[in-house]
C-alpha cells in the first residue's frame, strides 16, 4: 500500500526509542517488588541461622531465647487451618453452586453477588470485631478459643472461597451441561457428574490459597483475645490457642535483641515455609488436573 510520496523499496529502520524505554520501565516495575522481597527474605533467613532448629520447632515458648520454641503456635496454626478448611470448603462450594447453577438471574442474586465481592474487601480487623461480638460475647465460646478463631477467620476468607469457586464453576463449558441435560440428567446429576468434577481443581486451588491467607492473619486473633503466649497444644475446641503470626508479633515486643532478631526470624521462616508449602500443594493439584484434561 505504498503511496506516491513514499519510496516503495525503502525499508529504513523505524525508531524504537520509546519501545526500548518502555520495556525497561516495565522491567524495573517487575524487579522492584521482587528485589525488595528477596532482600527481606535473605535478611530474615540470615538472622534465623542458628536459631531455627529442631529444638525451636518442638519446644514451647520460654523467657530465655535459647530455649524458646514455636511448637504450640505451629500446632495451633495447623489445627486452625484444618478447622477453617472444614468450615469454608462446604459452605463456600455450596454457596458458589447455588449462585451459579440454581439462583435465578434476579436483582436479589445480583445484590447478593455484589455484597460477597464487597465482603471480600472488608479489613480483617473488622471481622475480628464481628468474631468478638458474635462468637465470644453472644455465643460465649470463650476468648481466644480454637472455635472462635476458626469461625472468625472462616468468615473472613469465605467470600474469597465463594468467588474463586464461582469462577471455577463458570469456567466449565456450557456445552458440558447441555450434553448432560440432553441425556436426561437432573440438575443434581449434572452438578455431581459434570460440573463439580470439572471445576474441582480450580475450587481446590482457590480454597488452598485462601487458607494460606487465613493462617497469616493476626488482626482477628488479637481482636478475639487470643493469648500472646500459649505453652501447650490445644486440648479441645474451647481451649485457648496461639497461632504463628500471633507468636511472632509477641516476640517482636520483647526487649531482648536475641528475641527481636534470632527467635523472631526463626518464627518468620517457619511461617513462610508452611505458607509456601501450602501454595505449592495448590499448584501441584492444579497442574495434575490440568495435564489430565
Amino acid at each position, binding site marked *: 500500500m505504498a503511496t506516491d510520496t513514499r519510496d516503495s523499496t525503502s525499508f529504513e529502520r523505524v525508531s524504537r526509542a520509546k519501545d526500548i524505554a518502555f520495556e525497561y520501565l516495565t522491567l524495573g516495575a517487575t524487579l522492584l517488588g521482587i528485589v525488595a522481597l528477596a532482600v527481606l527474605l535473605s535478611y530474615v533467613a540470615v538472622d534465623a541461622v542458628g536459631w531455627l532448629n529442631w529444638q525451636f520447632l518442638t519446644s514451647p515458648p520460654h523467657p530465655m531465647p535459647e530455649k524458646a520454641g514455636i511448637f504450640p503456635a505451629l500446632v495451633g496454626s495447623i489445627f486452625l487451618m484444618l478447622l477453617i478448611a472444614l468450615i469454608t470448603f462446604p459452605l463456600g462450594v455450596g454457596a458458589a453452586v447455588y449462585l451459579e447453577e440454581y439462583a*435465578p438471574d434476579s436483582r436479589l442474586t445480583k445484590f447478593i453477588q455484589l455484597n460477597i465481592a464487597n465482603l471480600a474487601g472488608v479489613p480483617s480487623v473488622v471481622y475480628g470485631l464481628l468474631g468478638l461480638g458474635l462468637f465470644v460475647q453472644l455465643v460465649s465460646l470463650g476468648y481466644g478459643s480454637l472455635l472462635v478463631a476458626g469461625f472468625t477467620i472462616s468468615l473472613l476468607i469465605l467470600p474469597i472461597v465463594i468467588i474463586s469457586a464461582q469462577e471455577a464453576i463458570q469456567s466449565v463449558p456450557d456445552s*458440558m451441561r*447441555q450434553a448432560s441435560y*440432553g*441425556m*436426561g440428567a437432573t440438575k443434581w446429576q449434572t452438578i455431581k*457428574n459434570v460440573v463439580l468434577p470439572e471445576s474441582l481443581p480450580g475450587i481446590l486451588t482457590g480454597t488452598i490459597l485462601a487458607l494460606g491467607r487465613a493462617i497469616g492473619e493476626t488482626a482477628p486473633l488479637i481482636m478475639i483475645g487470643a493469648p500472646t503466649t500459649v505453652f501447650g497444644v490445644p486440648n479441645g475446641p474451647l481451649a485457648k490457642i496461639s497461632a504463628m503470626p500471633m507468636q511472632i508479633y509477641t516476640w517482636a515486643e520483647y526487649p531482648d535483641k536475641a528475641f527481636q532478631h534470632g527467635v523472631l526470624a526463626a518464627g518468620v521462616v517457619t511461617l513462610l515455609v508452611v505458607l509456601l508449602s501450602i501454595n505449592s500443594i495448590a499448584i501441584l493439584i492444579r497442574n495434575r488436573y490440568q495435564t*489430565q*484434561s
Partner: protein
Amino acid sequence: MTQQNVTTSESDDDSSTASPEPGSGIASNGTAEAETTTTRSVIESRNLDVYYGEERALQEIDIEIPAEKVTAIIGPSGCGKSTFLRCINRMNDLVDSARVEGELLFEGKNVYDADVDPVALRRRIGMVFQAPNPFPKSIYDNVAYGLRVQDDTENLDERVETALRRAALWDEVNDRLDESALDLSGGQQQRLCIARAIAPDPDVLLMDEPASALDPVATSQIEDLIEELAQDYTVVIVTHNMQQAARISDKTAVFLTGGELVEFDDTSVVFENPEHQRVEDYITGKFG
C-alpha cells in the same frame, strides 16, 4: 438409503408402521395415498410459537415428523431451525428468556403439558450437538452416562459395546475404553457423542448440525451413520448444508428468516420441484 421408502406405501415386516395409529394425523383416511407414506408421525407441532423475550423466533409451526425416517431441517442462519429442534426435547427450558406457545406432540402427548417432566422426556429423545462435546471422562463412562443417570445399569458393558458398534466406533476404540474421550479425533468424538445419545435406546435422535465442525471424511462417516441409524430411529437433523440434507434425508423442512416453516415435503420434491419461489431461491443459492 434411497427414496424408495418414501414412495412405497406397504410395510410388510413391521405392522406398527403399516396401520394407522390413533395419534397419527396423516394418511388415516386413505384417500389418494398411493404416492405418499403411511408412516405414523412421532413428533407433531401445532401452531408452535417460540419467543426469546420479546423477539419471536418461531411462527406458527405446523409439522408432522414421521417415524423411522430422516427429517432434515434446513434454512439460513437465524431462521429458528435449532430453536425448533430444542423445543422437541425442551432444551429451550434452560434458556431463561425462552417462552413456548402452542403444542408440540411427542407420541400424541403435548410435551409442554404441566404433567410432563422435561428430564423424563429427554431420556426418550437423544441429542447430538453441533460441536462434539464428550465429557472429560473415559470413553466407556461417556457412553454409559445416560444409562447411569437413568439408574439402568444392567448389562452395562454389553450395552456400551452395542452403542459403540452402532456408532461405527467400536473397532477404533475397543482396546482403550478407559482412556479419555478427549484424546479422540474430532470425528471420533462426534461418533462417541452419537453412541452416548443412542446408548439408552431413545425413540428419537435430534442432531443439531452434527457435522459442521468436522472435516469432509469425518462428515461422510457421520452421514453414513445417520442413514444406518434411521432404520431404527426417528432422526431429526438440522443442517445448513443443503447437499447433506439432499443426500441423507427422506423429508425436508425449509425454515426461512423470521422463523417460518415455508415448505415441508419429501426431500426429492423440495429439492427438485419446490412449491414456493422463496424456497427455490434459497436452494439454488440466490440467498442465504
